[in-house]
Structures are given as structure tokens and as C-alpha cells.
């Protein structure tokens, strides 16, 4: 375990970038949801890192990390429910096929 905050933040930024790229580049709705989870976890990593290295933030960081996990769980549930509902109608998980509401 490294002693420096920067390395944790760098890993967090890398994970966030991977998540963002996945979200923008993937056409599959499931993969996009997974990318969102990745971004949320990247942020969580940054938060707990701050909590570990900045003494005044220690208690707050743990609470915020727990809140983020709860929100992420709720988001994944709702997101998956929507994706399944659409999939049942459209018979495809690819988001660029969902053009019915266009214009």
C-alpha cells in the first residue's frame, strides 16, 4: 500500500476515464450501465482516499462513500429495470436502435 494520496487519485482518475470512455463508446445498454458503476466506484475510491489521508475528513468520507454505494445500488436497479423493459419492447439492447422518440 502506497503512502501517497496522489497515486490513489491517479488510479481513481484512470478508472473514471475508463468508465467515461465506456459510457460514450459502448452501444450496449448493459455495458453502459456497467461503465456508470465504474465511474461511481472511481469517485468512491477518491473519497475514501481523501478520508484516509486528510484527518479532518475521516468520518465524513466514510459516510459519503456509503451514501454513494446506496445510490449506485438504487441507480443500477432502476437502470436495469428500464433496460429490460425496453429490451422486451424492442428486442435489442443497442441504444442507437432506440430512435422512436426522435424529432
Amino acid at each position, binding site marked *: 500500500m502506497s503512502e501517497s494520496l496522489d497515486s490513489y487519485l491517479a488510479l481513481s482518475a484512470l478508472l473514471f476515464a475508463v468508465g*467515461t470512455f465506456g459510457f*460514450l463508446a459502448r452501444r450496449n445498454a448493459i455495458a*453502459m450501465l456497467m461503465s456508470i458503476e465504474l465511474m461511481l466506484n472511481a469517485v468512491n475510491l477518491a473519497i475514501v482516499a481523501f478520508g484516509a489521508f486528510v484527518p479532518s475528513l475521516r468520518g465524513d468520507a466514510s459516510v459519503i462513500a456509503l451514501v454513494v454505494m446506496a445510490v449506485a445500488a438504487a441507480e443500477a436497479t432502476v437502470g436495469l429495470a428500464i433496460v429490460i423493459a425496453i429490451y422486451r419492447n424492442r428486442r435489442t439492447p443497442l*441504444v442507437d436502435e*432506440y*430512435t422512436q422518440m*426522435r*424529432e
Partner: protein
Amino acid sequence: MPMELLVTLVLALPIAGFGLTALVGRRLGTRAWIVAVPAIVVTWAIAMVVVWSALSGGFGADGLHFTLYEWVPAGDFTIEANFAVDNLTAVLLIVVTTVGMLVHVYSIGYMAHDPGRWRFFAYLNLFMFSMLLLVLAGNFMLLFAAWELVGLCSYLLIGFWYPRPSAAIAAKKAFLANRVGDVGFALGIFAVWTTVGTLNFTDAFERLSEGLAGGQIEAWAITGIALLLFCGAVGKSAQFPLHVWLPDAMEGPTPVSALIHAATMVNAGVYFVARANPLFSLSPEAMFVVAAIGIFTAILAASIALTQNDIKRVLAYSTLSQLGYMFASLGVGAYVAAIFHMTAQGFTKGLLFLGSGSVIHGVHEEQDMNRMGGLWRRMPITHATMLVGSLSMAGIPPLAAFFSKDEILGEAFKNGFLWVWLVGIVVAALTAFYMFRLMGKTFYGPSHVDPAVEPHVLESPRSMTVPLILLAIPAALLGLVLGLPFGAGLIGQWLEPIFEEAQLNLGLHHEPVQILGVDGVLILVSVAVATAGLAVAIRLFGFHWPLRGDDTEAQPERVVVLTARAPRLYRASFRKWWFDELNDLLFVRLGGRVAHFIWWFDRAIVDGTVNGIGDVVQGAGRDLRRIQTGRVQNYALGIAVALIVMAGGFLIVTAR
């Protein structure tokens, strides 16, 4: 009540004749006159009864006033259909119904071959109704309605032969020129209403003069009202600068020219100013304007009449000139003389127009006097009656217009308007000249009639010659009956009470006529001048001396020499002082430019702004629509980019 009933009948019969003829006239074929003409003959008879009662004093000093019904009941603002018959109305009734009746009879023959004759008689009856309403009206509103109605009839009848473009244009021109005057007239009526709160003639004039005396109404307000109302008279009576419509109105059938554009409608302006004498006499400025415009029109029109070649146009300019005399007379305070001249002119000019119609009919619809000449042998009755009319018009005693014209000139001189008298004398000479130029070119002198037509030139049928003879009687004798003895004739006895107040306002008093003094000299001067004009015309354009047995005393070469000596003057007169060109330049070209610019401004700037806003919104909507692709990734990219920008911005701001 019986008198009221008769006056109502005078109005009801022509309008009923109009309705019937308009409804069933087409089925009557050649007998389209069968309703219209008897209706007017009966109207004439009834009107004569009314006139007799009025002039014999049967209605008292103020005349007969009665209300038929409440026309416009609108709260405080009510207008009644009320009528007034006094001596002034009575004199007008004589002219309108008599000339009207004779013109109706004449039209039976003149319009016999026109397929639109039922339309003609219907319009003619409508005109009679309108004109009688105008004369009988007892308030401004009713007068205005009649004023517009006669304008409408004039329009319809000038454009009677509407397939001819010139007739349609002339009708439009008359209508538009009248509108210009009527705007002023309407404004004048509004001003009367706001100033005194009544439109009844008697009440309004009374309150105006009381208001001026009591100081509630300023003098300039009186002048303004008078001048606005005078605008209407200028339009209807075709005075400068709105005179241009009357000569073109000759495009209408000749009976129409005789009735509407010589004897009756064009007199409406004169009648109105005379009716409003208590108002006009309160404002010396307004009187001056009336006199100046009148005498200017008189000389302007007379100078144009000298060179015109269309027989009806010469008469039209003559009418303009005589109307100018009447306004000059009104302006110098000689009201009786103005109405006298109107009466004499009405009969005389009606006769001359009907005579010219007979001539035109005789030479197969030719109106150019250069293609007439020597007609006196072939059309003796037309010639004799027109000779009477021309002599009267020229002011040769003892015919009608001599008395009236002389009274105008005499009064102008004695009331101190020397310039009016001087111009008037010149106009008198010009009048005599152009009337006998017309007679010479038409009846005497060498014949220029189309050789193919000449053998067929015949006197007109009796329905046309009888009205001519009947009109020649008043044209010859009216002056003797009404004008003698000088200054104390019948016409003066009839009309002086009406103008008493005006005379008082103007500070004029009636002096006895000195036939051996100043009046005699004035008469001699005007007769001498008229005779001179007549003699010159005879020398130049020919006259028949039965004893010598030759018809051709005309000296066309002298005419050419004379016109060549003053080419500018000749061209000015021939081109009518370029008034049509001036109007064309001012209103058609310049006005057209302005109108065109305004049209452009409206289209480009006003519409452009409104449409521009719409276009921008529409275009923005159309372009921005593309952003909404329906792809989640695009939206997500937007969010990401916006986040980066916001975060970057935050960093830049906080880094400072």
C-alpha cells in the same frame, strides 16, 4: 298639412320612378321612359304649386319648415329629416324641375336608339330625387347626403357609356375631384356640430352669429368653418383648382351635360353658399376668398373656351366661367344677383347644351366644330334657339343673362370691388367672343361636314326641338320678367328678405338704381364690350347675310394670322393652361412616386420586420432540431463536455 304632403310628393315621385324603372325598365324596351318621364312631369306640376305658394308669401317670412321623421335618433344626437321651403328654395325648384322635365322629354328622342335607355332614365330619376332633396334639405346632414347622391348620379351618368375608356376615366375623375372638395365639406360640418351643437340651418347660423357677437366663438373659427364648407362648393361647382373634372364630364350623354353639368348640380355650390349667407357674411376673409376664386375661375375658363374645338367643351368651359361669375357675385355680397345669374344661366346653358346635342345628333355623332359649318339651313329650329341662347349668354339686351350678368358687374362695382368688375368686364367680352365663335363655326361659315354625311343632315325629331323651343322662352324673356325695373325686379322682391341679415353683416345697403347715373354707364360699358367681342367673332368666323346671298364671310386666314401672332397664348389656351399636365405631374407622377415609396416601405420595412422575426424563429427551430439526435451517447458527450468546461472554468477562476 297639404303643403307638406305636396313637398313630400315632390321627393317621392322621382324616387318611385327610379325604383320602378330600375326594376322593370329592362322589359319596357323602347318605352323605358313610360314611367320616368311622366313622374317628372307630375313632379314639375306639383313643384310649381309649391313655388307659387312660396313666392306669393303663403309660407310667411321664414318659409315652410316641417319634419318628416327622425332620421338619426342616437341619444343626445338626433338628426331629423326636416325640410325647408323659402323663396330661395322656390327659385331653385323652378330651375331644377323645369330644366329637369324638359331634359327628360328631350331624352326620349335623344336616347331612343341606345340599348341602355332604361338605365339612363332610372339614373336620371334618381338624380332628380337627389337634386330636389339637396334643395329642400333643412339641415347639413341631409344636405350632405343629397350632395353625395348627386355626385353619385353624376358619376353614373358621365360613365354611362362605360365601355368607352375615356368615359369611364372621366367619370372617375369627376368622382375623385368631388371627393377632394367633400373632405373639406364634411370637416366643415363636423366643425359646425362641435361649435354650436346643431346641424339645423336656421339654428346653426343663428347660434354662430350670436356666438361671434357674444365672444364665445372666435372670428378665425367662423372663417375656418366657412372656408371648409366652401371647399365642398368648389368641388361641386368645379371652381379652380378643382375645375378639371367638368370639361371631361362631357363624355356623358348630352342631356346629362345639360341637366347635371350645366343647369342644376353644378349650381349646388352656389346654392349652398347663398343658403349659408348668414355664416359667410360674418367673415370678410372668407368672402374675399370666394370672390377671388370665383373671378379667377371666370377668366381662366373663358380664356380656355376661346380655342377649344369640341362644341360641348366650349360650353363646359363657358359653364365654368359663368359659375365663376356667380361665386364672384356671392363674394362681393351680391347674393340676389348670383341667384339671378344662376337661374338665367341654368335655362340658357340648358338650352345651349340641348341645342349642341341636337347638332351632334344631326351630324351623326360628330363633336368637332372643325367638321361642322353652314348648318343653319338644315337645322333651322336648332339654329334659331341656339342663337337666342348665345345672344343671352353673350349678354346682349334684352335677353336673360344680360340682366343677371349686368347686375353682378354693377354690384361688384358699387360694393367697391373694382378688380372684380374689371376682370368681369374682360370675361364678358371673351364670353361674347367664344359664343359667337361657336355659332360661326357650327351654323355659319363654310361647311366642313363630312361629304358622306352632309346629305343626311336633318333637323332633329320633335321630342328634341320642342324642349329647345320651350327653353328658349325663359332664356329670352326671363330677364325682362324678373329683372325689370333695374334693381327692383321680381327676383329682388323674392330674395332680398332672405339675404337681409347678410347685407346687414356686410354693412351694405340697398341703394336705388340710377339709370341715368352710374348704373346706366356701367350697363353701357358692359353691353359695348359684349358687342365688341361678338363683332370680332363674327368677322373672324363668319356670319350669314341673307341679302348678300353668300354664306361664307368667315376669314380662316385671319384666324391663322392672329393665332400665329401670339403662339404662346394660343397654346396655353388650347392646352387648357396645362392643368391636366400639372395634375398629372403633381398627383399621378409625384404622388405616384410617394405612394410607390410608401408601398415599398410597407412591404420591405414593416412587413420585412414582421416576417423577419418569423423567419429567424423558424430557421432557429429547424437548425436546432438536429441537436436532438435520439442517441444517448450524443447527450452523454454533451454532458461530459459541459462538465469539463465548467470544471475548467472553475479551476481558472479559483486559480487566480
